[in-house]
C-alpha cells in the first residue's frame, strides 16, 4: 500500500466530516470509525509499500490507527449531543482526531527528517486544538503550555535538520547514516543529532522537559488525554528517538556517539524514577497516569540509549504495550469521572462492586504496566532488562527492576482507594457505564492478555523491525561496510 494512502485517507475524511453535520446525526462519528478501521486493516495486512517504510513503520501505523479507533469509539459515546465540550462542533472534533491520525501516519512513514518535522507540526496543531477544545480556562492553559514547549521542541528539531542539511547535503535517514559512518564530518553530525534528540526528548515529555505533560493531560477533555498519552507523545517523540537509534546504530559508532547513548540512558533512568515517585504523591487520577506515562517512557528511552538490537525490540514492544495500557487507564479514568463526577481519589472507594468491567480492565492495565506475568507489559520489560544486563548496564538493569515495584506500589494504592473497600456516599448509587464506553477498554485489555499469553507468536514480527540493524551489525563487524 502506498504510504500516502495512510495520510490522505484520514485527511480527506476530515474534510468531508464537517459537511455531515446535522442536529442529532452521528454520521461524522461513523465515518471516523470506518476510516480508522480501514486504515487499521490496511496497516495490519501489509503496511506501507516497499521503499516507503519498514516493518517498524507498519507496526506504528497499526498502533496509531488502533488507538485512534478506540478513542474515536469512546468519544462518540462519551460526548452526548448536548455535551458542552462539543456542542455545535462535534464534527470538528472528529475531524481533528482524523487530522491528528494523518499527521502521525506521516511521521511514521516518512524517510526524512524534514518531512517528519512537517508532520510533527500537523500533530502539534491538531493536539493543541483538541486540548483547548472545551474552551474553558484549564484547557486553554494546558494547551498554551503544550504549544510553548512544543514550539521550543520544533525549533530544536528544525535547527537539527538544518545542521544535518549543511553537514550531509540532505535530510533523509539514509543521509544521516552515511554521514555518521563517514568519520570526517563527525562534529556536524553530532551537533545535528544532539539538537534532534533534545527536541524529541521535549516532545516525549522526558524529565526535565516534562512540565507540559501533567497539565496538558489533566486539562484536556478525557478522550483527548487518552489519545495524547496513548499514542501522540509516543509518535511525536519516542518513535523519532527509536528511529534515530536505528539509523545511527549508536553502539557501533562508539567514540563521541557513546556520550549520546549515555545521556539518553541517564535521562531515561531519571524519568523512570522521578515519574514513579511523583505519581505516588498525586491524588488526581489523571495526574497519576500522566506521571506514570513519564516513568514508562523512561523505560523506552533507556532501551533506546543502549541501542542494541534486543534493546530496540524491547523499546518497540514496550511502546506498543504502553499505548494499549495507557489508553485503557485514561479511558477508564474518564468513565469513573463521568459516573462519579470526580477524579479525586480521596473521595472515591468501593467502585469495584459498582463498576466491575471498569475495575477489571483497570486491574489488567495496572498489572501490565507494573510488568506482572503473563501480561504483555511483563515481556517488554523483561526484554529491556535482559538487554540492559547483556549490554553490561547492570546498575540500570537493577534500577529498572526496582522501579517496577514502585509502579506496582502506586497502582495498588490507586486500586485500593478507588475500587476496593466499602462504597462511600459518592459511589453508592453509581452504576457501570454503558457498553459503548466499555467496548474500547475491553478490547485493549483483551489485547494485553492475548499478547502476553501468545508472546512467542508476536515476537517474530516485533524482531523484524530491528532485522536490518542486525544485518548491518554483522556487515560492519565483517568489514563489508
Amino acid at each position, binding site marked *: 500500500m502506498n*504510504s*500516502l494512502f495512510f*495520510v*490522505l485517507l484520514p*485527511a480527506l475524511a*476530515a*474534510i468531508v466530516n*464537517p459537511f455531515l453535520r446535522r442536529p442529532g446525526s452521528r454520521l461524522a462519528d461513523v465515518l471516523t470509525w470506518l476510516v480508522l478501521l480501514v486504515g487499521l486493516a490496511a496497516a495490519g495486512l501489509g503496511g506501507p509499500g516497499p521503499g516507503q517504510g519498514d516493518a517498524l513503520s507498519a507496526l506504528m501505523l497499526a498502533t496509531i490507527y488502533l488507538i485512534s479507533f478506540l478513542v474515536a469509539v469512546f468519544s462518540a459515546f462519551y460526548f452526548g449531543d*448536548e455535551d*458542552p465540550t462539543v*456542542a*455545535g*462542533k462535534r464534527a*470538528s*472534533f472528529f*475531524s*481533528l482526531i482524523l*487530522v*491528528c491520525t*494523518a*499527521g502521525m501516519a*506521516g511521521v511514521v*512513514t*516518512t524517510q526524512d527528517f*524534514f*518531512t517528519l518535522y*512537517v*508532520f510533527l*507540526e*500537523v500533530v502539534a*496543531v*491538531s493536539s*493543541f*486544538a483538541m486540548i*483547548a*477544545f472545551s*474552551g*474553558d*480556562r484549564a*484547557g*486553554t492553559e494546558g494547551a498554551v503550555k503544550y504549544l510553548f514547549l512544543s514550539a521550543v521542541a520544533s525549533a530544536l528539531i528544525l535547527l537539527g535538520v538544518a545542521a544535518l*542539511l549543511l553537514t550531509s547535503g540532505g535530510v533523509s535517514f539514509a543521509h544521516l547514516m552515511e554521514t555518521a559512518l563517514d568519520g570526517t564530518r563527525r562534529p556536524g553530525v553530532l551537533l545535528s543529532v544532539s539538537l534532534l534528540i533534545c527536541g524529541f526528548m521535549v516532545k516525549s515529555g522526558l524529565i526535565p522537559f516534562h512540565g507540559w505533560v501533567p497539565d496538558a493531560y489533566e486539562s484536556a477533555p478525557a478522550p483527548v488525554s487518552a489519545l495524547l498519552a496513548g499514542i501522540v507523545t509516543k509518535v511525536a517523540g519516542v518513535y523519532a528517538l527509536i528511529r534515530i537509534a536505528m539509523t545511527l546504530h549508536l553502539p557501533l559508532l562508539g567514540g563521541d556517539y557513546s556520550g549520546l547513548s549515555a545521556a539518553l540512558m541517564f535521562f531515561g533512568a531519571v524519568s523512570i524514577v522521578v515519574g514513579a515517585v511523583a505519581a505516588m504523591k498525586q491524588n488526581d487520577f489523571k495526574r497519576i497516569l500522566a506521571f506514570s506515562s513519564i516513568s514508562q517512557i523512561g523505560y523506552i528511552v533507556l532501551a533506546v540509549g543502549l541501542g542494541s538490537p534486543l534493546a530496540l525490540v524491547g523499546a518497540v514492544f514496550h511502546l506498543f504495550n504502553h499505548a494499549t495500557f495507557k489508553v485503557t487507564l485514561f479511558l477508564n479514568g474518564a468513565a469513573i469521572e463521568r459516573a462519579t463526577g470526580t477524579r479525586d481519589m480521596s473521595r472515591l472507594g468501593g467502585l469495584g462492586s459498582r463498576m466491575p468491567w471498569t475495575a477489571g480492565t483497570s486491574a489488567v492495565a495496572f498489572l501490565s504496566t507494573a510488568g506482572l506475568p503473563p501480561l504483555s507489559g511483563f515481556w517488554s520489560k523483561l526484554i529491556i532488562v535482559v538487554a540492559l544486563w547483556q549490554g553490561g548496564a547492570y546498575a540500570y538493569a537493577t534500577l529498572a527492576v526496582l522501579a517496577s515495584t514502585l509502579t506496582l506500589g502506586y497502582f495498588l494504592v490507586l486500586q485500593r482507594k478507588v475500587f476496593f473497600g466499602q462504597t462511600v456516599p459518592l459511589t453508592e448509587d453509581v452504576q457501570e457505564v454503558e457498553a459503548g464506553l466499555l467496548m474500547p477498554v475491553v478490547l485493549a485489555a483483551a489485547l494485553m492478555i492475548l499478547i502476553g499469553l501468545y508472546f512467542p507468536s508476536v515476537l517474530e514480527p516485533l524482531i523484524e523491525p530491528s532485522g536490518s540493524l542486525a544485518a548491518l551489525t554483522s556487515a560492519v563487524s565483517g568489514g563489508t561496510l
Partner: protein
Amino acid sequence: MTHLLLLIILALFSMVAVMAKDLLRSAVALGVASVALTLVFYEMSAPWAALFELSVCAGLITVLFVSAINLVRGSEAFLLEERHRFWALPCFLVALGAGLWLFGDHVAPSLMPAGDAADSTPVGSMLWGPRRFDLVGQICMFLSGVLAIAAFFGPAKRPPLEKGPGSVSTGCTPATFDYQEGK
C-alpha cells in the same frame, strides 16, 4: 516571462500586506506573497529554500497570524489601533518599476541570476516528485489550522455572557473572555 510575472505578484502582494487596513487581509496577502516567493526560489533552482519558505512562511506563519487576528478581533484594544497607510511604498515601487523598465537591460542580469540551466525540471514535477510527502503535510497543516479555528470560533451552544460594568463585547471565545476577566 514567468519569472517577471512572479516577481510582480510578489511585489504587489507584499505591498498589499503593508498597505491593507484590515489585518486579516494583510496576513492573507503575506501568505500569497510567500507562495510567489516560493515559486521564485524554485525558478532560481533553490528547491530547499523554496520548501522552507512554503512550510514555514506560507503555511505555519499564515495560520498563526490568522488565528491570532481572530483571537483579538472585535476587542477594544484592536479597535483602538488605527493603521495608517504607508503611501511612500507604492510610490517607491512605481519608481523602481519604471527604473527597471528603462534600465533593465543593464541591471537585470545582476539582480536576476539565470539559475542552473541544467536543472529544467518543471515546478509541478519538483513539488510532486521528491517532496510530495511535504506537500501533503502542508495541506494537513492548513487543514488542522482551519479546524482549530473552527473549533475555537465555531457555533458553540453556551449561555450568553453577562455584560458587567467595564466589560467589553469582544466577540471572543469564552476562554479568551475568561482570561481577560481573570475568572
